[in-house]
């Protein structure tokens, strides 16, 4: 068996790159993170929501958002499916579910992921997962790239397109300032059905599990947000299939940063090694030329010798 010089070099370099890349990807990958121990959250019991839009009104008030043209008491707004906007951190949507009497309602807002996609996509660290559980936004560092809007699997962040000079990304803050003051989030405080429960995420999971156990015929045996995208601070219980009320069931359980950290961690390596690699190739080709020249000289020299 004969191995050519070229083949051997190929193997060696492949093994070298392989080991370096493999190791570094793992080393850069997130360590296992279950979210902050004491982090807070909200449990939304979809079976209880009656679509009164009180939460929307309260959200508008506590966050000092512009008051919409149609009043919050107008439930005809629900006839159209809406999403969060720069002027509304939260909206309630109505869904007709086959085989169920009456409509179902679902409140939409930022889910405050344990490991948020928006913050991992943000290169100026404008988004931060705080220990309270809220994902906060710092407009002072934001450059307006809107990568967060693309990254968010729930399509939550909105942008102030009509602000010419100081546009901001707008999304629910879980009433972070209020929480720090010991107050409830605006929407939770006002809900007349108590369809929203505020508390430690760990406690909320227990409450949700207990409800499922106690009312097995009523609830779908799943807590949405317990594992979705690595877990979210907002949790959902429902009496109708989540897919019937517009909730994505294809998100998987991996947090968004983990999906990209492996590939992204190689970037500095590639960026660092690329010049070395190119220089090497350049040097090799240069050396070839030198050898060629030397051999040519030598040949010419010997020839002249022979000739003589």
């Amino acid at each position, binding site marked *: 068996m004969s191995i050519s010089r070229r083949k051997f070099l190929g193997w060696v370099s492949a093994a070298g790159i392989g080991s370096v890349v493999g190791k570094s990807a793992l080393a850069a990958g997130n360590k296992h993170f279950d979210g902050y121990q004491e982090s807070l959250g909200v449990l939304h019991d979809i079976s*209880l929501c*009656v679509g*009164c839009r009180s939460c929307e009104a309260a959200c508008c008030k506590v966050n000092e958002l512009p008051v919409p043209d149609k009043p919050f*008491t107008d*439930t005809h707004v629900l006839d159209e499916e809406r999403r969060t906007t720069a002027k509304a951190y939260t909206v309630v949507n109505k869904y007709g579910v086959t085989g169920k*009497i*009456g409509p179902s309602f679902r409140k939409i807002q930022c889910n405050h992921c344990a490991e948020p996609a928006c913050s991992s996509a943000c290169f100026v660290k404008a988004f931060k997962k705080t220990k309270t559980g809220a994902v906060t936004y710092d407009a002072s560092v934001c450059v307006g790239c809107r990568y967060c809007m693309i990254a968010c699997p729930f399509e939550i962040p909105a942008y102030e397109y009509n602000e010419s000079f100081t546009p901001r990304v707008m999304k629910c803050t879980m009433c972070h300032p209020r929480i720090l003051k010991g107050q*409830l989030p605006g929407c*939770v*405080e006002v*809900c*007349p*059905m*108590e369809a929203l*429960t*505020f*508390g430690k995420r760990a*406690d909320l999971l227990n*409450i949700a599990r*207990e*409800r499922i*156990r*106690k*009312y*097995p*015929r*009523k609830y779908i045996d799943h807590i949405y947000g317990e594992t979705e995208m690595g877990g979210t601070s907002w949790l959902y219980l429902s009496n109708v299939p989540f897919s019937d009320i517009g909730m994505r069931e294809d998100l998987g359980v991996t947090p968004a940063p983990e999906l990209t950290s492996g590939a992204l961690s190689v970037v500095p390596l590639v960026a660092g090694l690329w010049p070395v690699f190119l220089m090497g190739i350049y040097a090799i080709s240069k050396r070839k030329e030198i050898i060629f020249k030397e051999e040519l000289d030598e040949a010419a020299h010997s020839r002249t010798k022979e000739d003589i």
Partner: protein
Amino acid sequence: MKKERYLFRWAGILTISIIALSGTGIYGLSKVLKVSSQPRADVIKIDNMIAFGKLEKAPVEFLHEAHTEALAKKNKDCAACHLTQNKRMFPKFKRIADTDRIEVMDIYHKGCISCHGEMKVAKEKAGPVECEGCHREKIQHLTSRQPIGFDKSLHFRHSEAQENKCELCHHEYDEKAKKLFYVKGKEGTCRYCHKEKTKDNLMSMGLSSHISCIDCHQKNISKSLTTGPVTCSGCHDPAVQQKIKKITPIPRMDRKQPDIVMLKNAPKGIGTDTENTNKMAFVPFDHKAHENYNDTCRVCHHESLKQCNECHALAGMKEGNMVNLEKAMHQVDSTRSCQGCHEAKQNDKNCAGCHVFMGKERVKEDTSCLKCHSAPGVEKKKASNPDDEKTLVKTMLQSRNLVPGTYPENNIPEKVVIKKLSKEYEAVDFPHRKVVNTLVKNIKDNKLAGYFHSQKGSICKGCHHNSPVSTNPPHCGNCHGKPFDAKNPSKPGIIGAYHQQCMGCHKEMGIEKPAGCTECHKKKKN
């Protein structure tokens, strides 16, 4: 030259990957797209060859009624395709049994292609003669075929028409003589023997029912008698099934079943049960009444019509799949068990309003057990002979109070003013007595509900939960305080409690009014 080879290689890789990608995509799509026409009940998938191993070609979609109609135009009847054995027409195509692979394949190929070919020669509209014409990968027709159940109404119409000659359909099988025979009083459902698939000479449910039903209907037609359908859609089209005549009330099906029965441990000689191992009081059971609540006997009994305790003993038996008597009667997620069926009834509109709030507690109240387990227990005086037992069951059933109990009207407040909510809104005038009366009226004719709500005040527990039954129950606000009590996370605050209870109940009962906030409480004028 080198450059050319390089480009060529890249082009090759690209083409292969494009072909691979598009190929899988198009193949996947084509399986669903382009389904023609409305769903029909006569689509038969011919895949009989699967009995002899993997199919070489795609199964054939066969439209039975299209063929019957085409043959009728040529004055041909069923005999054109179906053979007759023992004076009965056989549903398989031109054969009695699936003998071997080549033979069955040849029967189909010869039978189908020759007929299609002849028609083609005669320049008539004919079916395909080439392989791909019949063996198509794509689904061509959607099927709406729905199995037809032989419910009690249909059974009665048949037994009436046949003058109660049960032996015309029901039979037993003699293993030794290899013959069918009839035993009076042992009639059971067909499914007891006839299973999903044919095994040896025991025909599948599908095969045997098609032989029996169609053959009998066919013969009646030849005698010009009114009879049942003989076409696929006649039995299997969901729309046609809706139109089948229903008898009301359906006279009782007679198979010497008891009117009343005492549910108890397994009789002597079955399982390891003895009267000493039976600690719970026996349950008197109104068998006759329950027959009316269900469409078939199979709803409770499995395929066989044996007594429950012949297979479900106290300790569980192999015959009963080790499901013991307790489970057989109480398993909540089973539709066969007493409790499973009774709990499912709580989803009824008239019941769900209250019952939706009642959680499944790990331990049941003693009183709910005693509602059924009311017969004198083993330690007390027991019925010595079957006749005594019957009288005992009868008196016990008769002594049951089936009327929902309430307090006298003057004990039920007519109006309750709910002031707790009067911050943004005015107080609510709650028509308390009207609500109570409606709840009672709704279950007045329901024996099950009546029996379980016969105690005074049990209906009050729908709203006044978690406190002893009384004419003077605690105020809602005595337990429900401010919202989001961290120490009591599952107990809503007073506002949440009212809204959840009132609106939750109205939603479950399908009550649309009052709608919106202001129909219960008026907005305060500032």
